[in-house]
């Protein structure tokens, strides 16, 4: 009886070891196949992008077709998008890459992946779309900027900013969740890079939405785009806000105005009924 049990146990262990080895071999083979495919994709893409002078890829139909067949699967497509994003970091090829994406069927595949079940997949699709300068349907973005899933919400906000620029700021109040400082920095970076001309009316409109974290973003934007002297009324309102973080930020920014901060230019007396009036006046050194 004991001997039979031992034999069965040894058998199970042997089967386990063999199946583990088989799995390892299969994984290695798959990895080798993926590596070979990646080399082919890189080589084709390098050839395609390196030899084309204009945005016209129509005369490279055979190469495009080959690339399309190589990247027909999800993994291949993801790798191609990563490589295109890498190329975009180095070279400005907006027309070329959008035409390429279109011909490779990547655009439509990515837009389709926005409807996937997993929020993480949708978020990745949003990132890939805005990084490759593709347009995301606006109704989709409006839905996702207030989404419960943190990654999807954040990336949709960035996508909205990249797509609509300053006009997107008032829409960010749709999200009831607090915006982190890191997210605010990302938004400021995107606006600085893609929309370097500040639009004060839209900034004020966003401020008037009343959302505290959006107001913090507006204050930081006013600082980054050198609008503090013109926007000091807005910052003063923020300094007397009930939100401690917004109040601290606005006080710091107002103090940084240095010579521009004159008692006569600050209509601080309208806040004299505020419980923190004396404290904040002292901090503002008025």
């Amino acid at each position, binding site marked *: 009886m004991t001997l039979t049990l031992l034999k069965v146990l040894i058998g199970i262990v042997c089967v386990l070891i063999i199946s583990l080895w088989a799995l390892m071999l299969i994984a290695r083979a798959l990895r080798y196949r993926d590596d070979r495919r990646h080399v082919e994709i890189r080589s084709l893409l390098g*050839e395609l992008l*390196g030899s084309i002078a204009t945005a016209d890829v129509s005369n490279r139909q055979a190469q495009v077709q080959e690339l399309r067949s190589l990247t027909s699967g999800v993994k291949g497509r993801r790798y191609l998008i990563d490589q295109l994003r*890498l190329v975009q970091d180095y070279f400005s090829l907006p027309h070329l890459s959008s035409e390429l994406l279109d011909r490779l069927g990547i655009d439509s595949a990515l837009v389709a992946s926005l409807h996937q079940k997993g929020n993480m997949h949708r978020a990745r699709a949003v990132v890939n779309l805005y990084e490759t300068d593709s347009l995301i349907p606006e109704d989709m973005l409006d839905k996702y900027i207030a989404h419960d899933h943190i990654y999807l919400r954040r990336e949709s906000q960035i996508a909205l900013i990249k797509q609509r620029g300053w006009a997107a700021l008032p829409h960010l109040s749709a999200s009831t969740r607090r915006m982190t400082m890191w997210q605010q920095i990302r938004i400021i970076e995107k606006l600085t890079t893609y929309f370097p001309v500040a639009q004060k009316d839209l900034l004020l409109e966003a401020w008037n939405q009343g959302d505290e974290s959006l107001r913090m973003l507006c204050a930081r934007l006013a600082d980054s785009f050198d609008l503090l002297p013109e926007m000091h009324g807005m910052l003063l309102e923020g300094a007397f806000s009930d939100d401690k973080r917004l109040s601290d930020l606005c006080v710091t920014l107002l103090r940084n105005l240095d010579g521009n901060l004159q008692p006569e230019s600050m209509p601080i007396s309208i806040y004299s009924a505020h419980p923190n009036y004396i404290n904040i006046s002292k901090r503002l050194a008025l």
Partner: protein
Amino acid sequence: MKMPAENSYLSRLNQDSGIRMKRKLIISDRLIASILRRRLKWAPGAVDIVQHVHEVEAKVNRHPYDFIITDAHVQGTRSADHLQYLRAQCPTAKIIVLDHDRGSLRESSETLSLHRVALPMTLDQISDLINTIGQ
């Protein structure tokens, strides 16, 4: 030591033509390097492509490069150390730094006499710039 195929090809080409072909090194991602190589129409044997700092050391110690195009950030080292090392090893080479950092390397590129290319740039601009540097 047996020379690699591309070296013997290059030295044969140099002997045959009587003109010394310039050696170039591209330190970047392989895709970026292959786009640059095709774009600049360099002879295949005259260009080496490396990606990691260890490969850089091996290449730079072995060949006298005339022209080096490098990413500001290379895997396995700090940018400043990498650029100082390149300048120390190749004092006469023209070194072009592809810089994503919007000017953070401006100072070191001046002190080490490097040519800095602020990215992203169009392929035409980058080819013109590289082809005309030092002329």
